[in-house]
């Protein structure tokens, strides 16, 4: 299928990926081509076929409720560019999820 510039913009917002107008054009073109290729899947008869999402052959891998050591606060914060009083800092978010 074709994916329009408007759709690209909507998707980029969902994906939290800011795009320039140029990139929007470019992605709309490239993604359309890829989706056109992918659309061949419509030819496959999948009635009665279960989707599979995991091929590990595992089931019920649950763990015991036993505490083990965490990272230190220093390790937790060692890769951030902005910290304050043992916490991460980001620009204000007040709007609710």
């Amino acid at each position, binding site marked *: 299928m074709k994916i329009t510039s408007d759709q690209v913009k909507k998707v980029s917002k969902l994906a939290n990926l800011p795009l320039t107008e140029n990139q929007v054009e470019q992605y709309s073109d490239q*993604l359309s*081509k*890829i989706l056109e*290729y992918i659309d061949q899947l419509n030819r496959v008869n999948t009635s009665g076929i279960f989707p599979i999402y995991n*091929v590990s052959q*595992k089931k019920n891998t649950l763990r015991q409720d036993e505490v083990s050591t965490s990272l230190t606060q220093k390790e937790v914060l060692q890769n951030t*560019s902005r910290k304050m009083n043992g916490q991460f800092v980001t620009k204000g978010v007040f709007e609710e999820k």
Partner: protein
Amino acid sequence: MSDITQLTLKKTVDGIKNKDFSEKELNEAFFKKIESQNSKLNIFLSQKINTTGIPVAIKDIIITKDIPTTAGSKILENFIPPYNATVIEKLIENGVSVIGKTNCDEFAMGSSGENSAYGPTLNPWDITKVPGGSSSGSAAAVAADLCVFSLGTDTGGSIRQPASLSGVVGLKPSYGRVSRYGSIAMASSLDQIGPFTKCVEDARLVLEWISGGDKYDSNCKNEKFLSSKKLTNLKNIKIGVPKEYFGKGLDEGVKKVINSALKKMEDLGAEIVEVSLPNTKYAVAVYYIIMSSEVSSNLARFDGIRYGKDRDKFGAEVKRRIMLGTFSLASGYYDAYFTKAAKVRNLIKQDFDRVFQKINVIVGPVSPTVAWNLGDKVNDPLKMYLSDAYTIPASLAGIPGLSVPCGFSEGLPVGLQILGKQFDEDIVLAVGEVYESYTSWKEEKPKI
């Protein structure tokens, strides 16, 4: 003494044990070689100087405590992990030490190594060619003898394809064989860590080291891989050759090399039968939906707050896949794309299940071509994607795949792909080893 950097892992272990050389001498030899070669090939993104341990090179998408880990991306340029991947812990337990982190396509997204934010790795056999990807540096490091062995990750062919294009042994284990904890996730239901080695025997040894249960990976099989099969010939081995892997996309030169390898296997006693995996033609389409959907979610954690830089630092291919994946999961498209792809994935898996009832292994090409020129496919994403058409199906089914050097076309290496049932690495390695032992391809070294 001859060049100890050329020794296999097995011979290196023996050499240390017999005191033919010390671990210090070994590490110094590799350090010197890296000093002289790395700048030509752009293999290592970071290095560590050791005096002990067996030197291993690790794809820079695998987390190493206190050693920078970039995933080939600008977004993680200064990232120093506070923990080790499970495979690293297991290697350390076996006397192995990390000498460097290898270049790769950004977040393992690519088939040529050219999507690395730190410039492409060059093919040791011909520096005008790509070494394959995404584990480009790990493959080239083994080919150029800059390490004893290396680890890479394979999501749709990222170990097997660069192994083929760089003329080394590469093993993608079954999904669930090796813990993925600490492998920066690209597509969680497909990613597997595996070794690049100088011979099949080494791949077996590394798999024994790194496999086994992990309290941090729910999908990882509890039992360690233990080899029990050694073959001296291929009698009683039934090899399936999928006709879909020999279609019009396959380069004539590569085809010739593969066919003569099959002939050799027949001479060694194997029964060769043609098989059909009819849904192979949909694998790339299925893969691009499932992989990119998982990518879009896996890469959401990179928000620049706890580590790393802002999301605009992602490269073009990474952004393209995040966009494609976000679209496939979006309301209104989910069923038509994501669910549909997951159903066709089942059909692809069923193809293998059916075929493996009658044969022991599948053999065919890894890549439709030999290594191509740098820059050839960078502007055509779809063409790049299609170069993984023979490796993707096994990834979708979760089965193991080995690439073994099997000759040259246009002076460049060609790899033979051997696939087995899930968790039957044993037969795959045994067949590969017999083939290897009756040919001399592994003696060939690139002249850098």
